[in-house]
Every structure is written in C-alpha cells, then in structure tokens.
C-alpha cells in the first residue's frame, strides 16, 4: 500500500521529539450492504474508505493522530503533529525497519493465510439480492402474524498495513460476511420480535454452511412463539443456558474483566487474582482468535501481533489476561494478540476475539432433567458488565420455564442479572456440547466483531428480571 521508505520516514519523524514506540496503521476497505424491508430491496450501498493512524507511545501514554490523506505530504504532516503531542520523552535515534517487508516477512510466514473461496466483491450483486429476497420470503411464509421482516447482508474487505519502530512490518487482509434477519410478529396490541444472525471471517462460502432461508424461518418462528409467551418470572432461581444460546454470559461475566487495561487500571473484579480459583472446577475459559472462519477471528491483531489461543481460566483457576502491546509491556509479559481497534480512527486496546467456555462431560438433556425448577435460556441477546464490581446483565431472547425437569412454557421479557465471579462459581453442570453466537462488542466507543461460545451449563442461582413478580405490590404514593 505504502512504500517502505515512506513508512520509515513517518516513524522516524513521529519519534523525532522522543518516545518509546511509534507505529503506523494503514487501512483500505470496501463495505457493501443490502437491506430488504417491507418486501422491498430498500438499500444497496457500497463504500470505500482509506486512512492511517499514527501513534507515539511514551511511558505508556499515547498520542494518536489519524488522517484520510495517505499522500506523502499527508502522512508526514500527521507524523509531525503526533510527534509534537508526544513530547517530553527520551529522544531516540533513527529506527530502521529490519527484515524483509511485506507478506513474505518472518512473522507473516508463521501464521495461516486467509483462505477465501469466494471474495464478496466477486459475487454478482444479483446473487446477493436474491439471497436476501429468498430469506425475506421464507420468513414471511411462517404466517399471517409476521408483519415485518428485515434482512440485511453485509460484507467487508479490509487490507491493513502495520509498521512500527521495532522494525516490524505486517500486511494483512480481512474479509467478513454477515447476515441478519429481524422478524416482527403482531397480534392485537402486542408486537414481538425474533432475531437471528450469522457471520464469519470468511467469504461468501459462509452460505454453504448457513442457509439464509433457514435462518429467516428461525427468526420468524421465534417472533410468533413469543406472542404466546407468558411474562417472565422475577427473582432468584437456577438457570440452565443451552449451548445454542451463545456465549454472551461468558463474554460479560468474565471476558471484559480479563482485559489487561481494565485489570491494570484497577477496574476489574479479577485484579490481583492471578492463580486463584475464580470459577467452579470444570470451568475453562479460552479466547482464541485463530479459530478458522469465526466472526472474531483474525490472523494478526491491529498492532501486527500474530493471533493466538489464550487460556484465561483453567479448570476454575485464573491463569491469563488478554493483552495488547502497552499493557503487556507494563506487566512484563508478551502481548497475547488481543490489541484490536475499530478502524484507523481508533487506538488499539485489549479486546476479546472468540471467547468460549470449553465443553465439559455432562449430557445436556440430563442437565435439564435434573433441574427441579428454573429458567432455560435457549437464546441470549446483548449484555453489559460493570467490570469494577463484576455485575453483569444480559438479555434472554428465548426463554422457557423448567418445572420438575421438564421444559414447560415460553417466557418473554426476561433479563438475567448476576455477578461475574459469583456466577462462575455457581456453575454446577457443564455439558459436552458447544454453540457459537456472533456480535459486535462495544468498549470505549469502539465496536469490533466478536464471537462467543459455551456448552450447556447450569448456574445454581441467578436473578431473573421479569414482570411476573412473586413479591408484594405497593402502589402508595401519598398526595399532598
């Protein structure tokens, strides 16, 4: 994308007034999306964007500049601005890039290249539109009560180049495809929705594995089913989370708290607990960016560090945090390839990739059968965590009441609220299955694609927030 000579010039200029580390991140991307709603192909959009972010790190502090101007003048101007901001450090001499540059360099050779069978830009737009229309039709065929269907397919192809004052130069490509279906069902004054999505670090061959029509039918069936659902119970109870529910729970309950920046700032309930038991025996949590084709996978992180598999919790014991370069240097360890950024407009920070609870040995059906009373979660939605105290919430998109070991009726409008370490310690059954879900994870105003997974698990006690309250109703507001 940019000549090695210019990259060196930029890095040297950025460090001219001092600093420990300089880096340039260049990105060129194409985004395409198609949206069908109201039975119409409403949007077929395409966009191209390129930009560069240059940073200087000085004593762990970051100065960051970004620009869309990738000309020599533009990049040198940005480097000059960032050097001014990063002043008051130790001045270093000229730093030269070492080793062969580009895709043949040593670091690049160590990782598995991206294999994309069908690049999204090679797929005729007609074929993409047809896939979206087929999904729309499939969802609407579920019944009269389906009032609206939104189908969106998006693909992006991103080329990145990362060079730094350590002499490293990495070039990489990322291709992601994502399909999402939202179905709206209505009956009298009630509206309910069903949502399904699939995506991966993959080309259009994603749809060899995922049939858009099947996905659409699932979303529509869920919306209709929720019309019949009863209000969710409120209160503390055992909760079984099915493998197909996805891994929002592990993402929120422990993932964020194991990101090294939060730990180092004293903002994690897991700080100072390395080596301690932080989850029940039998619970192993892994972040793995190397899984082929998953939505949170990558070959290099956004600092040019090779992706890796990092065990975070091993059989209940805390064994690792997720690091980017800055936090790793602070703790005197190697970065774990978790330095990610949304785009050239953002500085990299520690982020999850594909985060999972590893499968155990229990039979998933038996876990439900052995539950006297509680909630079965078949699909999770979004969530949020307060890493400082570990409190987390997540949405239940599809839930059922369990009575006497049997799955009874569907419930709607439930949220689960709990505390990370407490919930992980209360996991008493771990199934031998595993299911993935995808999402966009937000942190510090940056969204990055992630996947998470878990086996069927049971948590002894968790607070369910529904509207069907067993406790007292008080409506007294005195008038004056």
């Amino acid at each position, binding site marked *: 994308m940019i000549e090695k000579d210019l990259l060196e010039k930029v890095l040297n200029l950025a460090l001219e007034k001092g600093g420990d580390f300089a880096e340039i991140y260049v990105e060129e991307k194409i985004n395409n999306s198609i949206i069908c709603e*109201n039975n119409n192909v409403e949007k*077929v959009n395409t966009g191209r964007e390129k930009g560069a972010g240059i940073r200087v790190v000085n004593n762990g502090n970051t100065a960051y500049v*970004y620009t869309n101007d990738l000309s020599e003048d533009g990049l040198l101007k940005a480097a000059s601005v960032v050097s001014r901001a990063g002043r008051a450090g130790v001045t270093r001499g000229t730093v030269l890039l070492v080793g062969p540059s580009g895709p043949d360099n040593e670091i690049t050779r160590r990782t598995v290249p991206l294999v994309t069978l069908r690049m999204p830009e090679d797929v005729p737009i007609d074929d993409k539109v047809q896939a979206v229309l087929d999904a729309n039709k499939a969802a609407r065929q579920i019944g009269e009560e389906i009032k609206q269907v939104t189908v969106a397919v998006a693909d992006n192809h991103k080329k990145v180049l990362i060079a730094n004052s350590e002499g490293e130069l990495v070039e990489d490509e990322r291709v992601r495809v994502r399909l999402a279906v939202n179905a709206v069902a209505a009956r009298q004054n009630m*509206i309910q929705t069903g949502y399904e999505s699939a995506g991966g670090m993959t080309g259009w061959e994603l749809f060899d594995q995922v049939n858009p029509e099947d996905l659409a039918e699932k979303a529509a069936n869920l919306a209709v089913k929720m019309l019949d659902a009863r209000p969710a119970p*409120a209160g503390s109870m055992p909760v079984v989370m099915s493998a197909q529910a996805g891994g929002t729970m592990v993402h929120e309950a422990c993932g964020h708290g194991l990101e090294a920046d939060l730990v180092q700032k004293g903002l994690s309930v897991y700080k100072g607990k390395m080596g301690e038991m932080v989850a029940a025996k039998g619970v192993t949590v892994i972040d793995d960016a190397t899984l082929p084709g998953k939505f949170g996978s990558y070959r290099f992180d956004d600092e040019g560090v090779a992706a890796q598999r990092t065990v975070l919790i091993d059989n209940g014991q805390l064994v690792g945090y997720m690091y980017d370069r800055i936090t790793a240097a602070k703790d005197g360890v190697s970065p774990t390839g978790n330095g990610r950024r949304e785009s050239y407009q953002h*500085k990299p920070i520690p982020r999850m990739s594909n985060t999972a609870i590893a499968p155990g040995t229990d039979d998933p059906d038996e876990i439900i059968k052995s539950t006297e009373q509680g909630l079965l979660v078949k699909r999770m939605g979004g969530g*949020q965590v307060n890493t400082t105290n570990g409190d987390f919430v997540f949405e239940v998109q599809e839930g059922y009441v369990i009575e006497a070991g049997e799955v009874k009726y569907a419930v709607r*409008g439930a949220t689960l609220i709990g505390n990370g370490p407490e919930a992980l310690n209360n996991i008493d059954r771990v199934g031998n299955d595993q299911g993935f879900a995808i999402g966009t994870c937000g942190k510090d105003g940056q969204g990055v694609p992630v996947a998470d997974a878990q086996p069927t698990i049971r948590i002894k006690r968790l607070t369910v927030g529904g509207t069907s309250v067993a*406790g007292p109703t008080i409506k007294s507001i005195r008038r*004056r």
Partner: protein
Amino acid sequence: MYQDYYSSDAEMAGKLLDIARRKKVEAEVFVMRSRELSIEVIDGQVDTFIEAEASGLGIRVINDGRLGFAYSSDFSQPALQKLLDDAVTMAKYTTQSEHNRLPQNAQTYPELAVFDNNISHVSVEEKIELARHMERTARAYDSRVTVIERAGYEDGEVSQLIMNTRGINAFARGNYCGGYLFLVAEQDGDAQNGFSVSLKKSYADLEPEAIATEAASKAVRSLKARVIPSARIPCLLDPYVMTRFLGMIAQMVDAEAVQKGKSLFAGAIGQQVASASFNLVDDGLYADGIASFPFDGEGVASQTTSLIEKGQLKGYLYDTYTASSDGTDSTGNGQRGSFRGLPSVGTTNFMLLPGEKSRQNLCSDIDYGFYITEVMGMHTANPISGDFSVGAAGFIIRQGQEAEPVRGVTIAGNITELLKDIDAIGNDVRFFGGKAAPTVRIRSLSIGGE
C-alpha cells in the same frame, strides 16, 4: 479550516451534479469534514491524546424511483467519477418507489449560533489543565475515591455541505466541547463506579467542578449497595435514566418504524399514550441543544416538532421519504451520522418538558419505593415490542427520604404501560447528549431482586 474547503467542495459537488444530470438521474452530494481533539488524563498525566481530521462524501442517486448510494473518503478525480458510477449501478438493484425523492429548494434556514470560536481558540494546555482539574477535584471530594479511570476533555468540529439536482445548496459548520469523568470509590472491599458526562455548545458553559463532584458523589454514595427483594413498588427515574427511556420512545415516534409496523404508536395519533403530565418535543433549534443545526442530513430546514402534548400523541418524526409516503412534509429529521450512510429518521434535541415539582417533592410522597439512578443493558430493551428488562441501581426511598443504596436488581415492563403509569414529572430537566428529561415518578414498576 472549513471555509477553505467550502468553495472547492461546492465546485466539486456542482460538477458531479452536472454529470448526474447528463446521466438523467437525480442526485445529492453530501460532504462531511470533521476534526476531533480528545484528551484523557490519568494521575495528572496525559494518558491519551488524539488529534485528527477526517472527511468523506456520500452520493445518493435516484434513477426512475430507484435509490442507489455510495460513499468514499477519496476526493481524487477518478475516485469521484467511480463513486457516482457506483451509486448509479447500485440503483439498478433496488425496488422502485415513488417516494424516493430529494427535497426541493424551498428551504429557509434558521440563523443558529452553532459555532463557538472559543472552542478552537482555547489552548491545548488549558484543555489538559481542565481535565487535570476535574481529576484533582474528584480526588479531593472524598478519600474513598481511589481510581480515576479517565478524566477527559474533548471537542469536535463538523462541516456539512449538501447539494442536490433539485437546487438544494446548504452549508454549515458546528462544534461542541465536553468533559467527562469515570472513577471508582472503594471501601472495605466494595468497589463502585461513578461517572459524569457533559457536552456543551459553548466552552464557557463547561463546568469541570460540577462534573467531578457528580462523578465522585455517585460512586461514594453507592458504596455498600445491596440487592432488595422482588416487588412492585413506586419508582423515581432520575433524568439520566429517563433519557435512556426516551431513546426507546424516539424509535416509536419514528415515521419509518410506524409505517413498517415496528412501532406501538402506529395508528395512535390523537390517542392518550402517556399520562396527562407528559409533553415531548423534538427541537432542532433549541439554543443550548447539542444537536441544533440549521438543516438535517438532506438539507431540509430544522424545526420544532411537538410529538406528545398532555399525554396525547400529536405526530411523528419524518424525513423526506417517510413524509412522502404519508402525504405530509418532512419535519427536518432526515439525520445522518456520517458520510457513510443514507439519511434516515432520527431525533435532534429530543426533550421531555419539565413539570412543576422538585425532586425532593416527588420523593417525599413515597413511603417505600426505589429511586433509580443507573440502568444497565438499556441497549437490550426492545423498542418494537416495548418490552424492557434491564439492570438497575439507585436508592431505597423510605418515608419520603433517600435511604440505603441498591444494586444488582432489574426493572421490567413495557414502555407503553410505563408512560401511562407516570404519576408526576419534576422540574429538574437535564440534557444528556441530545436528549433531555427531568426526574419522573412511576406509580409502580416490577423489581426483580432476591
């Protein structure tokens, strides 16, 4: 800086529109240029300093009722030509609709003071000092304030140029500044967060000490919070919490959601959708509003739109497309967050108007209730079904007084019921970003706890 670009951008857009006319398509060029400065201080040190500029443009094409869109950050001649060609190509694949149209040039733009020269004139050193001052003030507030996650100052400038083949020619620039503070208070092994964010149109309006004090007091008073038993009890929603609910309501008054059967307010014009004390407006002209701008993302003049009056639904928010579908006029709500997307219905300054009672008054009438100051996972609330079930924290109210702190509970219900269950509205209206609300009292709400 933007005045420098204006004439060249307008010339470039004019040329693109000429090419579009020759291709016999309608077209709109939207150019956005932005600048950002962001300073984060931790322990007196500038932890992160970001200074940047970005720009890009989007072209919307309508060819025989079919819509195409393409965007780019590349202003070079070949890229611009390709951009227009791409947009024309995209329009081949979309469904034809008579409502795909561009606004006409019959706009009179209001004179609004949306640019404060002070923001760019104040030195970077002074801005860093402002962030440091917030951090020091927060630490001095209480010794239990142990961690400053980030003390930040930020400002931004944005210019928008919109020109279309129907004669729209709109240009304006605006800016804003803000301070924020995220921190932690600790006592006896318990850790609680506190934060405060304040965005202003004018540098002189920034109140660093107020930000610091609010963040610190929030964290300190939440220490030792505990779960309470499940119940249905009267609740006070603090202005911040109420603005989060306004986010749900914003999607319910969005004409696109209404027309597509994705709003519980569909067909409800003239009906009582909230208690009689509820008055809601969208005001793109509000003097201190962070979202004020002379025109929307399509070049339609901004206006004030009354949505709910005395609990009665009066109207919806429209862009040009949805207005055409309903045979009405755009309300100037065709919003655009960046050059990367098409305009779609969105709010400007979205405000729940204040009532008469003070917060203390609202509280003093409650024997046993829950004063909710934080919600968690609000993005999971479903604006289509109206169902919400979210984490909540705050304080118990006993005999009219704020008592011990609460955390780890949920509040759940449906927004349509919540609106009708509003019992009184406070006079303490506050802005959080582009949304403003006072404290609101709810007769009863489901709490999920022990």
